[in-house]
Every structure is written in structure tokens, then in C-alpha cells.
């Protein structure tokens, strides 16, 4: 596995660190230093809350190489409450059926590993049903 490419985006993977545009206030994830909304320079750090809703979802019954042992797993487009949509796995679902619009929150989970004792284990964000909505 390519260690540096996972390591250099650790702030995004572990803490959803993005940017906010100083010109139009659009929130940007992942960071790209140029605002996709207004085209201005946008390098101001912004920490996302990790709260959002399910915009769409599916369940993987057939995984790409490296992800087979997680099967079956749910993946989703999650619309963060600050605006951007992220692509991520859903987790901790239990028996709960997933629905579009379901509130979810970000947690840090194991994404993949090399399947033996060598190599890194990639951790990153997944989304689980929001605790507050379960109350």
C-alpha cells in the first residue's frame, strides 16, 4: 500500500479538516485552496462538525481488492450540515435500516489493511446513525 498518500491526508481522514472561503463563506471538503463556489483563494482552515444526513446509499456485495473481508458493507453520500457531500462507509448500523435523510455522525474506524502483519492499517472516517437522533 502507498503509505505517504494515506499519511498526508490524515487531518481529513481523522478529523474532517477542510477550509472555509473568506470571500463567499462556502465550506470546502476536502481542502483544495480554491473555492469551488466563487473561484477565490480559500486557505482558511475549517473544522467540520461531522454531523450530516444520508443523501444516498448502497450496500456492497462485491468488493474491490483489499476490502473483501468487510463484506457486506454500506456506503453513502453524506451531506454534511455545513454543505459539502462526502463519500464514506456507514457503520454501527445494527438492524437499523438505512434511509435517505437519516441523520449520521462521523466516527474514526479502520478502513482497510494489507491482510497480514506487515504494512499500515488505514484509519479514516465512517458515519454511524447519529446518537442524538436515537434518544
Amino acid at each position, binding site marked *: 500500500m502507498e503509505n505517504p498518500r494515506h499519511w498526508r491526508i490524515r487531518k481529513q481522514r481523522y478529523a474532517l479538516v477542510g477550509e472555509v472561503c473568506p470571500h463567499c463563506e462556502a465550506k470546502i471538503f476536502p481542502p483544495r485552496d480554491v473555492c*469551488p463556489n466563487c473561484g477565490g483563494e480559500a486557505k482558511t482552515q475549517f473544522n467540520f462538525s461531522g454531523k450530516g444526513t444520508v443523501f*444516498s446509499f448502497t450496500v456492497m456485495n462485491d468488493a474491490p481488492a483489499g*476490502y473483501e473481508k468487510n463484506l457486506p458493507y454500506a456506503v453513502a*453520500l453524506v451531506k454534511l450540515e455545513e454543505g459539502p457531500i462526502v463519500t464514506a462507509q456507514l457503520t454501527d448500523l445494527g438492524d437499523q435500516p438505512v434511509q435517505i435523510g437519516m441523520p449520521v455522525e462521523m466516527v474514526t474506524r479502520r478502513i482497510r489493511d494489507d491482510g497480514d502483519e506487515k504494512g499500515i492499517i488505514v484509519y479514516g472516517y465512517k458515519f454511524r446513525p447519529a446518537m442524538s437522533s436515537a434518544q
Partner: protein
Amino acid sequence: MREVAVLGIGQTKIDEQWEKSLRELAGEAVLAAMLDAGITRADALYVGNMMSGSANHQQHLGTYIADWVGIKNAEALHIEDACSSGAAAFRSAVMAVASGAVDVAIAAGVEKMTDSPGSEITAELATAADQDWEASQGLSFVALNALIMRRYMYEYKWERDHFAGFSINAHANGAHNPFARFQEPISEAQYRKAPMIAEPINLLDASPMGDGAAAAVLVPAEMLRRGNGRKVIRVVGSAAATDTIAIHHRKDPLWLSAAEKSARQAYSQAQIEPKDIDLFEAHDAFTIMAALSLEACGFAERGQGPRLAMEGEIRPNGRIPIATRGGLKARGHPVGATGMYQIVEVVQQLRGEAGATQVEGARYGMAQNIGGSGSNIITHILMCE
């Protein structure tokens, strides 16, 4: 710019071609196109291919294929544009001939997918998506399309069964195409019972992979008008456009803006409107993509693509025939070759050589090849003079 015409076409059957290597497949298609065109030399070769570096451990395909087919000293390039590599190669050849830089150009598309195990191919196909922010989360290419389809069904109130017509039409047409991977019709009951890959996409929503190659020979149209008695099939529209590579960055993930933009440009170049198109080889990698393509290209209202399939308007005798030789769904989807198969099939239709699925009196044919999940879309319009 010079007017450009297609002089010859060639293709291999799409299948699990265990006996044939990458270059043998490409060579078969290129030599068939050269034979059809009646030429023995070419100035340039453009090879569209997505994954030979990883799936076949072979890059440098321009040289590799030019050497194999014996067009010595010709200029040759390998063009990679994910699933739209085939159309990208064709467009490169069109521009080369139109500009006057090249007189005889060959465009080819080839993909040899069965040299690697399935799960590796699944991972390689996902490299068309954003590796850091989509694929590395464990999504396959099917899953990305499933996310679009689920949201589309939710917003526009469609059920899964409403997409069956796309698959049924493709298989009905593929049954008459000897080059198609699948040559058997399917029923609505079979569609309903097909196993789920990534809900709501089942096996009969998804196009099959396969090994295959297709090619075309392009020359200045003027060269043909000097008369050899053959129909002149001219490229009257060629346009390409991009969208964000990741679905989650699109303002409207349910709209193929690159399809809209490239189709509009192609219509404008050809000086026609959507109603003038006699057949449309759409990129039906998944049934949802056929629906979105029909909408973006002006054949259906937003959110109403499935209605054309339900009403039979996409059949060869309908208002806007698609997948007339089987489409990606039944002919097969050898990724980087697909765009060239679409061109070959449009030429067959315009020549009147499409047999049982011939669109009567076809004059304008459109081919649209989609790279990624709608990220890079290339539209061509061909016309029979």
C-alpha cells in the same frame, strides 16, 4: 479545418478471449478496419485503452500496436481517458485529419480484462473515480452508480422495474449482433430476478466487461468524393467536456452536465437539433446512465428518461433508438474499447449494414462515450452524405 470521413471499420467479438492477447485483439480490429478501407498504410494510430498498465503490465500501446499491425514509422499514441478512452482516441484522429496534419489516421480502442482476477479489475475500474476521496473508502464503480440511481429513484419517484426496458431493448438488439458478448434476449421476469450487485443496481442493470477491440480509418472527406462509389460517412460533430471527477462535488449529482455540454456543441457543429438524430449509441454502462444521457442530450425531460424505455421509444423503430447493436449492456463494455465500438456501430447503421436492427433511413447517428461517473463525456455525430 478539413471535413473528415470514416473510410473503414473493424471490430472483434467481445468475450472472454482467453486465446488472444492484448495486441492480437487490437491487431484484429485494426487490420479489419484497414481491409474494409482498402488501405495498407496509415500516417497515425491513436490507441484508446484504460488499464493495460495494471491489467496487462504493458504500456506504450501506441508503439506496441503500430508495430504489431506493421504500419512502420507511423506516428502512434496511447490515449487514456478511463471509460471514454475509445472516443478520446477517435476524437484525436478526427482532429489530426481535420487539421491537415495527417491524411490517413487509424483510431482504435482495446481492452484486455481477463488477464487479471475479477477483484483486481474491480479495483482498477475504480481508479476512474477519485482515489483519495471515493475509491479508497471501499467503493466500486458499480457502487458509485448505485448511489446516483438510488437518489434518482427517490427524487423522481421511479421504481426499479421502470428501468427494465433499457436492459430488455439492449439484449433484444444484441441478439442480432454477432460481435456482441450476449446474444440472447431477456424478459422482464429475468430482469426482476437478477441478483443484486449494489442495490438498486442488479446484474441486468450493469454492463458486462470483456475483452475486445474496435477500430476505424479516417481520411479527408474530399478524398472519398473523388469517387469509389461508397457512401461517404462524415464526422459532423465532435466535442468533449468534463465535470468534477467525484460525484460528491457536483452541484446536481443527477445531471450529466458534461453530456449536455458536449452534445450541445456537437449539435451546433452539425447544425442540427436532437430531433434530427436517427439513432443514439448511448453509454448505457448502467440503466441509470442511459436515462441520464437521454435527459442531458435533450431527448427526455429532466427525471423522465425511464419513460422513453417504458414506452418503447428507444427500440430500433422508436423515436430515439439506443443500443441498436446491443449497447454496453449486451454488446459488452471492454472499457477503453467501448467508445470505438459505438463509432463502428453508428457507421454500420449509416451504411445500412445493421441487419435486423437497422434503423430505417438513418442519416444522422450519435455516439456518446462517458468516462468515470459522468466526469468526461465525448459526443460524436456522424452523417451519411
